C-alpha cells in the first residue's frame, strides 16, 4: 500500500524549479533574470537553455547574467554581451541577418508554395 501511494505521489510530483541563490533587489530584476536564463542557450548541452542546465559553464553564465541584472543592465545589453562572445547561436531568438534569413523565411516560403498549389488546384477544379 505504501509503495503504491509513494508511486502515485511520484507520478503527480512536478519538477520543482531549480533553486537560484541570487539576491535580487526587486521582483522585476528576478523576472528579467528568469526570462534571460530561458532565452539563452546552454553552449555545452546545446538543446537546453541556461535555466535548465546544470553544466558548469551554464552556472558561470547564469552568475554573469545575475550580476548584470543586479547592476541594472537591460535585457538587450545582456543578450548583446553573450552574442558578442558566443555568436547568434547563444540566443533562442536569433536576430534577423543574412546568416539567419533562411531560418526566418523558410516557413513563409513553404507557406507560399502550399498556397500556390492550393490556388492552382482550386482553379483547375472550377474549370472542370
Amino acid at each position, binding site marked *: 500500500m505504501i509503495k503504491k501511494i509513494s508511486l502515485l505521489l511520484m507520478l503527480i510530483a512536478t519538477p520543482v524549479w531549480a533553486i537560484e541563490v541570487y539576491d535580487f533587489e526587486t521582483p522585476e530584476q528576478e523576472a528579467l533574470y528568469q526570462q534571460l536564463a530561458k532565452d539563452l542557450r546552454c553552449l555545452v548541452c546545446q538543446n537546453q537553455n541556461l535555466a535548465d542546465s546544470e553544466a558548469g559553464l551554464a552556472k*558561470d553564465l547564469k552568475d554573469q547574467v545575475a550580476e548584470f541584472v543586479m547592476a541594472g543592465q537591460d535585457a538587450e545589453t545582456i543578450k548583446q554581451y553573450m552574442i558578442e562572445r558566443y555568436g547568434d547561436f547563444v540566443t533562442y531568438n536569433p536576430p534577423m541577418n543574412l546568416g539567419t534569413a533562411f531560418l526566418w523565411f523558410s516557413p513563409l516560403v513553404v507557406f507560399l508554395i502550399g498556397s500556390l498549389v492550393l490556388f492552382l488546384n482550386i482553379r483547375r477544379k472550377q474549370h472542370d
Partner: protein
Amino acid sequence: MKKALIALIPLAVFFSLIALLYINMGNHSEVLPSPLIGKPVPEFEHQTLYSKETLTQADFIGEPWLLNVFGSWCPSCQVEHPLVAALANTGKIKVVGLNWKDEEQDAKAWLQKWGDPYHEVLVDYEGDTAINLGVYGAPETFLIDAQGIIRYKIAGVLTSQIIRDELLPLIEEVSL
C-alpha cells in the same frame, strides 16, 4: 506527361534532402563559429601558475601566440596534449596555457605527469576570461597575432591534420 513530371517533384525533393543531409553528415554541428575572429583579445589580468606574476593581454603584444584552454579535469585535453607539446617544441609559436576552472594542485600534478610545454600558464579559476573568449568547453585553442588580434579558433581536440592543414599555414602567415 506533365502530370508524371509533377508527380516526380516530391521524389526529387526527397532525394535532394537526402543529399543535403549526407553532405552535412561529416560536419560537427556542435562546433560554433566564433564571433571573436578578427577582434582583439579581450582584456584580462591573470596570475601565472608557477611564477605568480600577473600578466595582462598587453604583455603578449609584439609576437604571435597560441592560447590553449585546458584543465586537469578534461580528458580530451590529455588527448591533444602531446600535439600541443610537439607544436610548442618546434619553436614556431609561443604557446600559452589558460588553466580553466581548475585547482592549483591538480593543474600542477597534471602538468607534472603529462609535461608542461607552455611558455606561461595563466590561471582562470573563476572562468571570467573563458566567458569573454566565448569558451564553451575545453580544450579550445586560439591563434593571436602580434597585434593581439584573434585570427583563428578551434573548439575541441587538436589533431595532427588540423595542425598541419589549418594551424601551421596560419602561424606562418601571422609570423611574417
